[in-house]
């Protein structure tokens, strides 16, 4: 093994690497999925795969909210933004995600007003300052982000702001993990559990993974050592024949989650019967919509939303990448037709997307490893 990308505490990483290797049973292959895109980013940035024995493979999961938005929802957002008097707001990450007729920047070039915001609260302020405009916030994200949208809606209600609404695309992580566990394409040995989502939902919702599917899961922090430590904890569970939920990131993630945040979500939003995910298809109860009580803040009720399902471009294999069936570099258009500058698929857009992370960091590490092994 070669350590190509040194980082702080590289000695500790080597020690963990040795402990992980000592737990490997000869001839056995191990596949762990890191659910969260932030973990994918760390893994490629620091070349963590080079610290692992060859029979451990890390599979990148669907935990990048920008990546799993289906094209049809981008088209729906642009459709709303085109309505007279609408000022749409969106996180910067969404601006370059392609819809079937271009992204938000392309749409703005044709006359819409879609502005980048850091926080849904910025969006609410824009509504306050522009009473003659209808401000629609393009809400995306897992349970990490949904409380922020919910709190903003509660604030809008408190202030009696009438020209603010939410195009709600919030999704929930547990049904996606379950869909992956039920998928026949992939056999996993365990999960590196998401960090920030777990600050909100806590660790309890993962218990079915251990009890019903017999797989270990370790909620992990974002630093290189956190991830290696979590892989060690997964390997130890397998070695000892355990399948449990463990929390490596307890310095940030409380076991019970954030009850205030969960209450805010439950007050404002409810589960949709189903929602489409890029790559994973329609998943039951996997997304949130506004409750009737907050209907006046629901952009889907104010505006006609076409809701047309749009197939991904033929060349794009984001679906397979998101399911963990293909590695980014195995996609036909990776790094040629599809780059972070001209992304075809969502996985190349977000810095947490597996393809963008691999394009920016991983390919260099791999090349260097290959060169190092040749020389």
């Amino acid at each position: 093994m070669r350590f190509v990308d040194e980082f702080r505490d590289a000695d500790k990483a080597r020690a963990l690497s040795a402990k992980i290797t000592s737990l490997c049973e000869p001839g056995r292959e191990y596949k762990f999925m890191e659910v969260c895109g932030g973990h994918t980013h760390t893994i490629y940035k620091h070349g963590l795969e080079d610290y692992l024995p060859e029979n451990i493979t890390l599979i990148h999961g669907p935990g990048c909210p920008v990546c799993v938005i289906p094209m049809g929802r981008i088209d729906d957002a642009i459709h709303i933004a085109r309505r007279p008097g609408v000022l749409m707001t969106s996180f910067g990450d969404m601006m370059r995600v392609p819809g079937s007729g271009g992204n938000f920047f392309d749409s703005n070039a044709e006359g819409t007003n879609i502005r980048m915001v850091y926080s849904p609260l910025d969006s609410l302020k824009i509504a306050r300052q522009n009473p003659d405009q209808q401000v629609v916030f393009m809400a995306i994200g897992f349970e990490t982000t949904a409380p922020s949208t919910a709190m903003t809606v509660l604030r809008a209600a408190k202030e009696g702001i009438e020209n603010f609404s939410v195009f709600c695309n919030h999704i929930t992580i547990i049904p996606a993990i379950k869909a992956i566990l039920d998928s026949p394409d992939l056999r996993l040995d365990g999960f590196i559990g998401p960090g920030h989502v777990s600050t909100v939902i806590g660790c309890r919702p993962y218990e079915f993974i251990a009890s019903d599917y017999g797989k270990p899961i370790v909620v992990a922090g974002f630093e290189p050592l956190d991830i290696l430590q979590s892989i060690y904890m997964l390997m130890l569970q397998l070695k000892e024949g355990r399948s449990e939920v463990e929390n490596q990131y307890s310095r940030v993630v409380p076991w019970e989650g954030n009850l205030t945040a969960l209450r805010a979500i439950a007050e404002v939003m409810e589960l949709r019967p189903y929602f489409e995910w890029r790559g994973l298809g329609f998943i039951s109860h996997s997304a949130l919509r506004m409750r009737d009580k907050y209907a006046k803040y629901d952009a889907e009720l104010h505006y006609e939303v076409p809701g047309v399902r749009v197939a991904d471009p033929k060349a794009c294999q984001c679906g397979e990448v998101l399911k963990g069936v293909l590695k980014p570099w195995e996609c036909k258009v990776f790094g040629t037709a599809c780059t972070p500058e001209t992304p075809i698929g969502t996985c190349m857009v977000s810095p947490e997307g597996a393809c963008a992370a691999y394009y920016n960091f991983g390919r260099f590490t791999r090349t260097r490893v290959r060169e190092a092994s040749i020389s």
Partner: protein
Amino acid sequence: MCLGIPGEVIEILTDRPDLARVDVSGVKRAINIGLLVEEGIKPGDWVLIHVGFALSKIDEAEAKAAMDFLEGIGKAYEDELAALRDSQIV
């Protein structure tokens, strides 16, 4: 948008107890602390911030470690800080 960034609470806004001014790598902005009402956030505390909301209270050592890590990841963090700099929620 997926990053959680550490910030130090400088003050709680007097007219809005659900808002606090924080310092993130020298960028001072108002954020919402309403999700941490039970923690009783006060000046000097460190919090992990996501899209303008404090998501969890952390200790200073964790904040420093997270900051070192984020500064090491480069562009994604720079973009996040730039977005925070543009944020004007009050």
